[in-house]
């Protein structure tokens, strides 16, 4: 099933052809409020941003922090010798490296999910977020960068970048195709009304 064709009309992301599995992959275009990322964030208007939450094990990469993330991951592995699995009691080395290098774009949330024992990551200070690519294929070590955007994707990227001031764009690659947090508690509430308003 090609989910992207059902959800997104134009192909915006040029996914690699050599997948390694079928867990699926999502790419989100994150629109950060740039003035809230630096030291001057206190001067920025409040209540104009939102955030995305997702389970830590879904995180593959954010183009803005990818290189630091990979370096830090290698560093942690070196530090931990032959024990690359857990650096802390609840984060893998890969997740810990992401958390160590994510600020101000990404960190571990203090929020938790009722039906998940894993920590949530959060991308804060967003003017918005767009799902721009989704596939049922998963990859060994691929994360989306601007070079992986199609012509339509590049055009959309540029269009979004120019709308609001001080915009910083990020490309977030996650594994899995299901919602960013499990929606199981929501499902029984899906009662789409037949009225025009609801």
């Amino acid at each position, binding site marked *: 099933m090609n*989910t992207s064709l*059902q*959800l*997104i*009309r*134009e192909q915006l992301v040029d996914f690699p052809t050599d997948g390694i599995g079928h867990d699926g992959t999502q790419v*989100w275009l994150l*629109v950060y409020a740039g003035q809230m990322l630096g030291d001057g964030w206190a001067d920025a*208007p*409040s*209540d*104009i*941003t*939102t*955030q*995305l*939450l*997702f389970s830590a094990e879904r995180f593959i990469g954010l183009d803005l922090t990818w290189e630091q993330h990979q370096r830090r991951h290698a560093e942690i592995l070196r530090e931990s010798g032959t024990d690359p699995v857990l650096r802390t009691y609840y984060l893998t080395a890969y997740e810990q490296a992401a958390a160590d290098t994510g600020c101000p774009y990404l960190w571990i949330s*203090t*929020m*938790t*999910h*009722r*039906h998940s024992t894993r920590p949530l990551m959060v991308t804060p200070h967003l*003017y*918005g*977020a*767009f*799902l721009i690519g*989704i596939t049922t294929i998963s990859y060994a070590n691929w994360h989306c960068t601007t070079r992986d955007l199609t012509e339509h994707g590049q055009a*959309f990227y540029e*269009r979004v970048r120019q*709308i*609001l*001031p001080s915009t910083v764009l990020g490309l977030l690659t996650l594994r899995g*195709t*299901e*919602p*960013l*947090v*499990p*929606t199981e*508690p*929501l*499902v029984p*509430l*899906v*009662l*789409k*009304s037949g*009225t*025009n*308003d*609801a």
Partner: protein
Amino acid sequence: MRREDSYAGFLNPPDRVPDKGERVWLFVRAPTDTVGAIVVEPYDMIGTDRTYEAERAAYDALAHGLLFDEYQEQIERIRASLFVPNSIFQSERECFFDGMVSRPILAVFLMGALEKRYHEQVYTYDDLTDDGKAFYDFIKTLYPGSELYLATALET
């Protein structure tokens, strides 16, 4: 912040109403609950373009004697196509925050934020600038089968 300073974004508001500021968010509701992101309802949301008339009718009923609990139930029911009470996110103390969260969405975007309030009701498609309408139309085309909502919230 003057309007022309920046955040007006895609908004083309009518004459100013002396009150606090306002923000307008575009939500793209996924055609299915099996994919997408769940985000928190905008703080101090007035309503959405697609639910406003029904919400106003509920408010009129409140003004004419409807019990507040019943009014709240009506509002929840009216908004249930996009927002539902939070029962999934909890704080470190394992308390659920007292708010609403969205059903899975494919996109969310701030269409504009103004320091003053320019609109007595909620923003609709007609209140967008030409560029805003073009962007809205593009997003609608980009996500076939999805439903778009414009949510208006007060600036605090």
